[in-house]
């Protein structure tokens, strides 16, 4: 029974129609959480005595970095599922997720650089985690470029899925790099089990922002995947009818 239900999600039309109502809700929840998180982070979180007010950048930098890595893992997972069970929707999600993940990784790198200047004096430093985040950005760009370059859609899908899988070796390296090299980034302050090294008054807004970004990512992925479905299934009856109907709604 469950298998059958799972299998239905592989159909682009089913996916599109079922996720329709979710999009608005996710967007709303994401907005609420973000506003709450931003107000808390910018206005109420206490000052960090060593770093000053610029530490507030952490509330964007860390969530963006987590999401950049998370989206890549999702892409690798979708790629694997798509290759093994030949699910089209998985390939569409991989293609749709790549630019978003790249944007988040880029954001993590840029906010990290801006944070670095007043805090440690340099815009850029080649420490382990920054290097591997840069590698992650290059991996994303490689996947986007390969998608665009291969003319046959089937081949492009499968090749990018494979490339995403190959590159996923990088993610554990990023995670463990801060343990292996003692450089700019400190070892993990946020632990899932046990006491975190960060004070509660700063930890909670950070966790909230991470959760908010998570919901935002789900929202963005649904948006982009749905458009990709429309684009790929353009020639089908249901898409043509849908686009015509929505255009009529838009006009009236």
């Amino acid at each position, binding site marked *: 029974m469950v298998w059958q239900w799972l299998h239905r999600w592989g159909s682009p039309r089913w996916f599109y129609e079922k996720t329709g109502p979710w999009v608005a809700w996710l967007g709303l929840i994401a907005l609420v959480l973000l506003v709450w998180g931003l107000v808390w982070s910018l206005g109420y979180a206490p000052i960090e005595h060593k770093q000053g007010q610029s530490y507030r950048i952490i509330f964007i930098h860390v969530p963006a970095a987590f999401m950049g890595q998370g989206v890549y893992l999702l892409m690798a997972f979708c790629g694997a599922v798509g290759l093994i069970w030949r699910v089209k929707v998985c390939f569409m999600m991989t293609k749709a997720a790549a630019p978003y993940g790249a944007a988040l990784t880029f954001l993590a790198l840029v906010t990290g650089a801006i944070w670095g200047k007043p805090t440690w004096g340099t815009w850029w430093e080649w420490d382990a985690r920054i*290097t591997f985040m840069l*590698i*992650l950005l*290059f*991996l994303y*760009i*490689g996947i986007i*470029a*390969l998608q665009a*370059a*291969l*003319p*046959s859609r*089937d*081949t492009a899908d*499968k*090749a990018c899925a*494979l*490339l995403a*899988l*190959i*590159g996923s*070796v*990088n993610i554990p*390296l990023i995670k463990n790099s801060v343990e292996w090299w003692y450089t700019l980034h400190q070892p993990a302050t946020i632990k899932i089990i046990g006491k975190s090294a960060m004070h509660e008054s700063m930890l909670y807004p950070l966790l909230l922002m991470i959760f908010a970004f998570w919901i935002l990512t789900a929202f963005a992925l649904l948006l982009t995947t749905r458009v990709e479905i429309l684009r790929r299934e353009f020639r089908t009856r249901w898409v043509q009818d849908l686009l015509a109907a929505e255009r009529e709604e838009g006009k009236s």
Partner: protein
Amino acid sequence: MSQASTPGLMRGFAASFRRDLLIGLRHKGELINPLMFFIIAVSLIPLGVGPESQLLARLAPGVLWVMALLACLLSLDGLFRSDYEDGTLEQMLIQPQPLYLMVLSKVLVHWLLTGLPLTLLAPLLGLMLALPAQAYGTLCLSLFLGTATMSLIGAMGAALTVSLRRGGLLLSLIVMPLYIPVLIFGASAVSYALDTNPQSVPLAILGALLALSLALSPVATAAALRMSTNA
């Protein structure tokens, strides 16, 4: 066709190896290209940063490794291309021998004709960059392990882009992030030798990376070849 007449794994591997080696050796002009690039590129460094030997010695591990990496990268495009263009690759895909072995033999030949000569040439270029004496052994060992790993990893990229007519730049883009860990550990191994740190650590990691790529990358390369030829 009886079972006995299909060549076994080792015979298939040996036949593929011999063929690729012969073809590679016939185009001696192409073999020289990566080596010449290596020599010229390394020679440009002292001309660019100045001849002061202390500075050159500090830069030498990284420069030698980066240039060896680039030389490998340049030679990868032709790994599968000529076979793809004349249809031999498709024949290899339907062979009874596992594709893993065919890929492995191609990569081995590529390394023997590119990576190994680079490794052997490196000490000479180390002299040009005033590399201190204690680092030469580590330099050769790290390049020996590293160029093999780079041939294996690069084969994946070459397989993914073989169907593109001008896939060279895309190949570099795809392969570069995967090369970076190899580069980091290789160059740091040689730097450690300069500072008398234990260079066994990065060398061990290089060995581990080689073992990992030896096991996994021909599988990925084979899958990529199937995808590219079914375009």
